[in-house]
Every structure is written in structure tokens, then in C-alpha cells.
């Protein structure tokens, strides 16, 4: 068991929708794999592309950015801007030869606890299928 590889996935999620959705999954006791660690920000607009790149150079196997649905952002349009940046990061990842599937952006509202569980399950599966981040060996 101990030497079985488990992916390290970083989740950066917004306080108002996805974090609340994740909490809802918790109070509903919806079970999902434990391979994700959450960093809370107020809005996905806060997510600097450097955060994602930093995570990958640190050896993260996957990154999930999750915010409100379009049109539902607590700050009007932060999620649009966040999503736009994620597209940019995805193409950057492709350029350096890292699978862009390792980065996912999803939209989970505060009432979508079940969806959150599904998203995590899905991300964990995608990343597990991709295997360890090749940059991990270079990580400090």
C-alpha cells in the first residue's frame, strides 16, 4: 500500500461557490478520493498563472481551479478573467511539453456538492491515468 503512487493535486478554489460546494459535499457526506489539497482564495480571478506554474515546478501532478458558474461570480466577472488565464496557462503547459489535462478549470456552485465530488473524482482519475508529473524529479 505504502509505495503505491498517489497523485498530488492542488485545488485553488473560490470562497463563494466552489469552496461552499465542497463544504456542502462534506455536510452531505458525499465520499470522494482524498488526493486533493485545497487552497482557498476569494475568487478565481485571484489565481495568478504563476501559482499554477509554481505548483507544477514544485511537482504537483495536477491542478484544479474551480469557481462560480459564468454569470454567477460573487465579484461579477472574476471567473471569466480567471478562466481566460487558465487557457493561457494550458497553452503554456503544452509548449513546455506537459500534458495540459493536468490543469482543470471547473465551475461548481455553492449548491452543487454532488458535482464537486464528481469533479474531484474525475480529476483524480485523469491525473492518475497520466501518471506522475515528469517535472517532479527536478523539483527542489
Amino acid at each position: 500500500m505504502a509505495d503505491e503512487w498517489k497523485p498530488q493535486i492542488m485545488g485553488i478554489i473560490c470562497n463563494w461557490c466552489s469552496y461552499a460546494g465542497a463544504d456542502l459535499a462534506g455536510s452531505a457526506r458525499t465520499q470522494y478520493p482524498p488526493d486533493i489539497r485545497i487552497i482557498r482564495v476569494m475568487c478565481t480571478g485571484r489565481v495568478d498563472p504563476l501559482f499554477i506554474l509554481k505548483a507544477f515546478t514544485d511537482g504537483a501532478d495536477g491542478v484544479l481551479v474551480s469557481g462560480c458558474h459564468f454569470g454567477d461570480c460573487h465579484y461579477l466577472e472574476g471567473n471569466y478573467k480567471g478562466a481566460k488565464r487558465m487557457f493561457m496557462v494550458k497553452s503554456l503547459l503544452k509548449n513546455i511539453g506537459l500534458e495540459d489535462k493536468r490543469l482543470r478549470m471547473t465551475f461548481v456552485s455553492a449548491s452543487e456538492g454532488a458535482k464537486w465530488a464528481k469533479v474531484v473524482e474525475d480529476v483524480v482519475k485523469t491525473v492518475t491515468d497520466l501518471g506522475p508529473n515528469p517535472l517532479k524529479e527536478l523539483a527542489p
Partner: protein
Amino acid sequence: MAEKKTKKETASKKKETPKAAVSAKTEKAPAVKAPATEQKKARVGVFICHCGTNIAGSVDIPDVQEYAKSLPNVAFADNYQYMCSTPGQSKIIAAIKENDLTGIVVAACSPRLHEPTFRTATKEGGLNPFRFEMANIREQGSWVHMHDREGATDKAKDAIRIAVAKASLLQDLVPKTVPVEHAAMVVGAGIAGMQAALDLANAGIKTYLIEKNPTIGGRMSQLDKTFPTLDCSQCILTPKMVDVGRAENIDLMTCAEVENVEGYIGNFDVTIRRKARGVLTPAEAEAKGIVGGGCNGCGDCEAVCPVIKPNPFEMGMKPRKAIYIYHPQVVPLIYTIDWDSCIKCGLCVEVCGEKKAIDLEMKDELVKVKVGTAILATGYDLFPIEKKEEWGYKKYENVVTSLEFERLICASGPTGGHLVRPSDGVTPKKVAFLLCAGSRDNTGVGKPYCSRFCCMYSLKHAHQIIEKIPGVQPYIFYMDIRSFGKMYEEFYYRIQDEGAKFMRGRVANVLEDPDTKNLLINAEDTLLNRPIKLEVDMVVLAAAVEPAAETDRTRKLFGVSRSMDGWLLEAHPKLNPCGTTTAGVFLAGVCQGPKDIPDTVASAEGAASAASIPIHKGEVELEPYFAQCIEEKCAGCGMCVNLCPYQALSLVEKEGRTVMQVTEAKCKGCGTCGGFCPGGAIWMQHFATPQIIAQIDAFLIGGAK
């Protein structure tokens, strides 16, 4: 590359932050000396909560505590059964003093639940409350990995490591206090909006009551009787309508819509579109210098108007003119012109004469008001039940909705209260009520939820026809009768005793006999285990309800979320059903989810009470998550200025350089600017780049394993 750059940034920012933090301080914050604590080596205290067995049941607490002790910067670690209890909080207070801590981490439930609790404890221990960070090991830990002790324990360890990394870098912050405008707004003037507005007004608060229709009263004014007391709906509603019309503190705006909302709790700037109703109120007339003029509701105009249209208040079953009132008891009693059908013949203007109440050239007006808090009470519409084609609504004339039934049975309705079949005007002798029409429906066509009041009003309908039509036989096709309210079950008993036949089975389809226009119902009597075909004279569909059409537009203006089924999302379904995630905005009535009248009124009173609190307090604290400009780094490129959705950023000249400046009152702390500053010159308080980078590093390369 990226990594190096970030590292450098992290290092340089660390040095600069004290300056930034100092410059960010307002005069109001003398108590805490930021630089003093900043320079101290971080000493973090970690407290792990068992939450009874909620956490301890799936997480190895002693193991996690040992691990926490081994983390850098951790000076103290402890655990307790219930950290949120008084003894739990005392532990934090004591530990801060005894161990000279600079930061606190509590690993427990969600920060959305107990962050305020532990911030208070941190403050009581003598630290700035924003030196607290929470690790969520329950909602996003033990509860979602209940059967994976190892996984949940590992995750808890990581969560604490990440939280400690942030706590080590947290700074003193001082929340800003802003005054609250002594006024409130209620959107929607149905029974919920009216009740909320009356409560606010009676509490001495100036209240703007906005209604899109020409009259207040909402859905309740369309109902005939109310269950289970059989009070006449209009009789109990109209006194309230009159009160609203008269209340000094209520500024009632009918034919009005919210056009735009700016600002934040305490200071909402709301633009209202007052739609041209084509008719002047006496007050408006007086303002225009027409003495003794304006509409007095005499109705002369209506008499001469040549245009006939269906009246939506009567569900289209009664005519109205192009200049109209919905019904005789409207408040305000002012006529309204339907611009879509008015032919501007001018007959009404003529007959109105000296009152000069009618202005066929009237234009919409935009009005700006400032309010401290707002309540949304936008109500519901009936689900378009014709989408469930099996029941033939809009295809067969004698299939009606419950709301149409209310008008047909109502004494002031199109038939004077005589229930008749739309096809031939004959009094029906056999009437079938189809419950759960479009509710509890998972096909994607109807609504998955229970509409909550259909059972009871259908019982009431059955009673009404038994009362009015001798020899009538009501059949109630139901799946479950949900009579959960006070005196509801007793009402069910009464209606059964009166002779309504309860058929336990959902109706599969309705067919029409083209000659008699009678309806043939196919259902199963599931209790007899027998398919039944029943010929009836009339079918009443207890159609599902859905949020009113404009709800979505309005909620977006106020920044309120909605749940999956479209109803507006409360801050907490159990403990904060009237609040929303937008501070200062509250929900009343059915817009939050189906409610009967007592529940609606209760929720309206709750919302009014909640909305009046900040107003009576006079000031509110805003979380100090503002953006700050690190001027040394700012190149004045201005990219952030356009990113800000609140126009809080601007470029200014300072010491011969162009730099960005934040207007704190406008900044809501989303961090969108900080997410894309190419020079890393924006410091998002409490979510600063070095803090987040430290969290990332702690997660991925800080692990001891």
C-alpha cells in the same frame, strides 16, 4: 524559470510588505503596531478539533498533533474535543499568552462556519484577529473520506502544513468600518415584500418598495380562499395593501424595476426604472402644477377606451382595456396604460378632462436611491404545464391550472364565482384534481422539487366546489398528501369527510371526447392495483411553481446566487435562510423556495428583522481584504485598472511616476487585479502572493514524509 522568478518575488516582497502594510493603515488603527509583530520570528500555535467523533472518527488526532509539532514555525500544538466551545477557545487565549504565539491555526470545520469564532478568540488572546488561519479537516476531510482513515489523516496533516505556512506570514489587518444608510429596499410587493416593507417601516426605516406590476398584492391577491382557515384571501390581504399604501416610511414604486445596483452593504446605490404608466398620480400632478389633478381612479377613461385585451390578473379569462386596473381593490388606485395595445386615440385624455391625469407621451424615468440593505421578494410563476403534454393543457379547453381555477371560483373573478367549464359554460359535476403536475418530476421537463402548497390548495379547491355545487364529486389524484402545517392534517380529515374522493395514483394521461369535451383520465388506483379510466367534466392541474421570470436578472444585479433548481440561494439552508452570501441582501418568500402564506410571511418578517439590524447598528465592518499597490514595483501600465469590475483602481502621478491607486471603499477584495499584475506590484491583503506561494510550497515540497 517561473519558479525562480516567483521565489525572488517572494523574497523581495517580504521585505517590502511592512511598508505597504503601514501605508495601508488608516488613522483609525492605532492599536496594533504592524512592524513590531512582522519582524518577529513566526511562532504558530496549532489546535486540532475532534468535533466529537465527526473528525476524530476518521482522523488519527494524536498522530496529526505529533506531526504538527514537527512543522517549521510551530511553537505549540494541542487538541480538544470541541474547539468552538468556551474551554476550547480558552485554550487558544491561554496558549497565545503562554507561548508568545504570532499566529493561530485551528484545524476543524469549514472557515465558513467558525472563522469568526476563532478570530474573536485570537483577538482575546491579544493577537490581531487576522493572524488566524483555519484548516478545514471536517467538511473537506473527515466527512468526505469517512472510511479512509489513512487518507483523511494524511489530508489533515497536509491541510495543517498549508495553513501553518500561511499563518507564519499573516499580518495584522484592521477592518474598515462604514456607516449604513438609514434606508432599505424591498424588491417585489407580493405578500412577502409587503410584510417585509411594513416591518421595516414600522421599525422606523425608510423603505423603498419596488413592484413591476401596476398594483401590489402579488399572487395572494389572485387567490380566492386560503387554507386551512378558508379566510378570503383578498379580505385578509387588502388591509395590508392599504397599510402599505398609507405607510409614511414606505416609498411605494409600482410599474418599477431595479435597473442597476452598485456599492456594498450599508451603501447600495440602486437605480430604479419607473416605467411610464401613462397616468399621473395626484402627487405627480401637483408637482407639475396641476392643482387637484391626477388619477383618482374614477374609471371614466376605461369606459371610453376602445381596445380590449385579456386581463393577465384574471389569467386572461376576463377582458380589460388598454387603460386599466387589475381589479377594484388595487393599491395604488391609479390607472395604467398598456403601451403594447394602446392606439393613442386620445379618448381617455378627453374624458379625463381637468384632472389631466393621462399623459400619452410619458417616458420611463430612472430614479437613484441609496439604501443600507435590500430584501428580494420576487415570488414565483406557474411552471408552463403545457410542456407536460400528456395532460393536454392548452390543448383541451376544460383542462385548467390551479391559478385559473382560483379565478373561476372567486366571487370577483370572471364568472362571479360560478365555476364553469371554459368550453361551454356548464357547471361541472365531476372534477379531477391532478396533484404533482410537473412537481417531483425527474424527467428534465418538470421540476424535481415538491412545490409544497399544491396538496393543501387542492384540498381547499375540493372543499370549495363541494360547498358551491350541489352533487359535485371532486376526485383528487395524489401520490402523497403532504399536510405538514398547523391544522393541515385536520383540514385533510375534514375534506375527506366532506366527500372528496382520494385516488392514490398519478395520472398517466388525459384524453378529450371531441363531442362532449369531457375528459377521460387514465390512472392507476395503486391501492387497488387496478387501472382506472374516469370520465370527468373538468381537470384542474396543480401545476408546479418556478421562480418568477425576472428573478434571474434581479438576483444578478444584487450578486445573489441561485441553487440548482433556480430558487435564490440562502446563506445557510438551516441557520440563515433569509441571508445571502452578499452582505446586506436578504431573501423573503417564495423566491427562496416554495412556501405557503404563513411560511412566506414568517420568512418576510425574518428578512425584515435581519435587514434592519445593520441599519439600526448604524455601521458595519468590512473585511479588510483590500488590494494595495506596492508603488516601488508598479510600472504604471494600467492593466489592472481595466480588470477591476468595481472601478476601484486608477492611475495617479506620484513623485513624477505614474502608479496605481486603490480606492478602498470601492474595492471588494476579489483579487482579480492581483492575479494578473505583470510586475507583482499588487498586494492582496490576507491573500497576498507570498502567502499563497508559501501555501503551495508547503503542500508540495514542505512535506516531512
